């Protein structure tokens, strides 16, 4: 009995291992290269202009199919390539009557990227709280890190490893006065000194309210942002920038994107028309002197939305291409491998056993595997009844089950050791 159990455990493990590595090995040989375009909105022509990697280097073109040289392309995007254009003396002084001041352009230019897994990355719950009004020109990294437990907000000194009781009490009281309910569920912050100023951190408390906590002249500044109740935050990207229009980008549980604005924490929704799915797409949000652009990158397409500075949608661009699964080799893969497993996935930083199922196409491969296995069973003169568990296994797991059963039953090949 125990022999049989151990054999089945080993067979299952070998099936898992094969389901992880064999499809990868297959794709190593037959993968298809798809190149996605880098899409921008030209303020010169008010249309989408893009480039992609072709067989002979970069190809620049617009949504109507006109192709450009690199120089022409750059001139269509003066808010992006202003440095190059100024260096070449090609920079226009104004556009549509609006003067193009390099400093203005720079202040307005922001680029935020949120990867597919960013919302699901492990985090050691210790954060720095930078001094936001130090009077110094540059930000300084503090010696203390804070945690928000059910006891309160505690500052731990990294040199002495001791809790700063005074400061902890000060901040805990400030939080209590603002009706903050301990402990914090999540903390979002931008822990770097490479930014123009500091906005502290944004914290979800135990009753799911969203707080803004800052340190100004070593005093706590705590505000309840009073977000609408129907917004459940999935992730926030905090980004202090000179534009000072928004604190950062919020992704809600229902796959919507917002700017959390300086206008009393009002949320401004960015257009995605319900296409955005957290965990499946990389979001790139750019701002410039004229527009706000949301780009959703998927592995089978791209969706771009452009708004004016008041967040009214003015244009959108959609393109899709065949993912590798739609190519003949993708169909063959689905027929050969009944499923594929992976320890990693784009949707999360955590290791798991992520699966992808290929039925009904996989029945083709499974039936062939079953047939082959049946031939061996017959050749070995085994009774069908005795082989039932293995026959079921091969029916369900196809090529993986076939290989596993062959290894664990029929190696040395062609001659069973049962005799």
């Amino acid at each position: 009995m125990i022999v049989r159990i151990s054999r089945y455990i080993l067979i299952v493990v070998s099936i898992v291992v094969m389901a992880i590595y064999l499809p990868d090995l297959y794709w190593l040989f037959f993968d298809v290269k798809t190149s996605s375009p880098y899409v921008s909105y030209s303020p010169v022509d008010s249309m989408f202009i893009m480039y992609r990697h072709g067989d002979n280097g970069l190809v620049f073109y617009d949504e109507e199919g006109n192709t450009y040289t690199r120089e022409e392309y750059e001139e269509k995007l003066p808010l992006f390539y202003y440095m190059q254009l100024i260096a070449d003396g090609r920079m226009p002084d104004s556009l549509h009557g609006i003067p193009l001041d390099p400093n203005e352009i720079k202040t307005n230019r922001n680029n935020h990227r949120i990867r597919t897994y960013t919302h699901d990355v492990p985090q050691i719950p210790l954060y720095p709280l930078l001094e936001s009004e130090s009077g110094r020109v540059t930000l300084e990294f503090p010696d203390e890190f804070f945690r928000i437990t059910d006891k309160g907000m505690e500052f731990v000194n990294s040199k002495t490893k001791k809790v700063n009781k005074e400061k902890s009490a000060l901040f805990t009281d400030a939080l209590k006065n603002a009706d903050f309910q301990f402990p914090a569920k999540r903390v979002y912050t931008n822990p770097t000194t490479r930014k123009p100023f500091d906005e502290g951190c944004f914290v979800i408390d135990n009753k799911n309210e969203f707080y803004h906590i800052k340190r100004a002249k070593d005093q706590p500044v705590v505000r309840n942002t009073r977000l609408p109740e129907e917004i459940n935050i999935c992730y926030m990207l905090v980004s202090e920038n000179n534009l000072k229009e928004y604190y950062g980008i919020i992704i809600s549980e229902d796959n919507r994107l917002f700017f959390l604005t300086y206008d009393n924490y009002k949320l401004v929704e960015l257009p995605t028309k319900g296409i955005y799915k957290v965990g499946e797409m990389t979001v790139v949000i750019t701002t410039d002197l004229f527009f706000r652009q949301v780009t959703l990158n998927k592995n089978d397409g791209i969706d771009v939305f452009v708004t004016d500075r008041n967040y009214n949608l003015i244009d959108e661009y959609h393109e899709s291409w065949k993912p590798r699964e739609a190519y003949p080799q993708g169909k063959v893969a689905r027929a050969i491998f009944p499923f594929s497993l992976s320890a990693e996935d784009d949707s999360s930083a955590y290791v798991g056993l992520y699966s992808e199922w290929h039925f009904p196409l996989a029945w083709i491969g499974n039936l062939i595997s079953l047939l082959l296995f049946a031939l061996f069973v017959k050749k070995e003169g085994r009774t069908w009844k005795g082989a039932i568990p293995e026959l079921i296994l091969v029916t369900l797991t196809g090529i993986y089950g076939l290989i596993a059963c062959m290894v664990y039953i029929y190696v040395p090949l062609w001659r069973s050791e049962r005799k």
Partner: protein
Amino acid sequence: MIKKIFYKEWLKIRWAYLAIAVLFAAVMIYIFASVAHTYKFNLAATYWYNIIFRGISFYSSLRYVPLFSGLLLAAVQFIPEIQKKRIKLTFHLPVNEYNVLLVMAGIGFLSLVVMFGVYCLIFLLLGYAFFPAEIVHSAVLTTFPWYLLGLTAYSLASYIILEPMWKRRIFYILFAVGFGNLFLYGWFYNIYDRVLIGMLIVTILLSISVIYSGHRFKKGVYK
């Protein structure tokens, strides 16, 4: 009888076991000496920042130590058994062969568990001396899959060693290497947290693998 088997196994593994203990001690000393050194020459806050936000680990030298321990212990315990097919003698003892094998593998497995447990505890306590609890706990959880890999490597290595036929061994090794590799993803801390229980169960289930090879050995399937 069990007591005597225990003694026999102890004779086989004692030097290797001692070597593993020394290796672990050396690695622990190295890790925390480096930590102390870093504290001395760098800003503590920057060090914490690198650990917390950049995922830089101070304990990565520990990564392959449990794996090596598992392989070594399996080797010293089971390679002598297949030389001149000595294990056949064991199978002729007046006790159930499978129980003998389970006891043998159990001794190796448990001695590894004890070793890993002790050093895990030492790591935890030394960690508290240098870091806040959050960082130490994250470190322990991040090293956990490596210890499980050590145990899995022990089980799989002993079953591969005891397997009588080379043709099969090659497949076994391929599966085992592929499986072991799954324990070693490590671009960030705590990424295994959601699967640790599952991995623990699989590790325990695989600990009886040696029975399968022993069964084949007993039947006399060698070429």
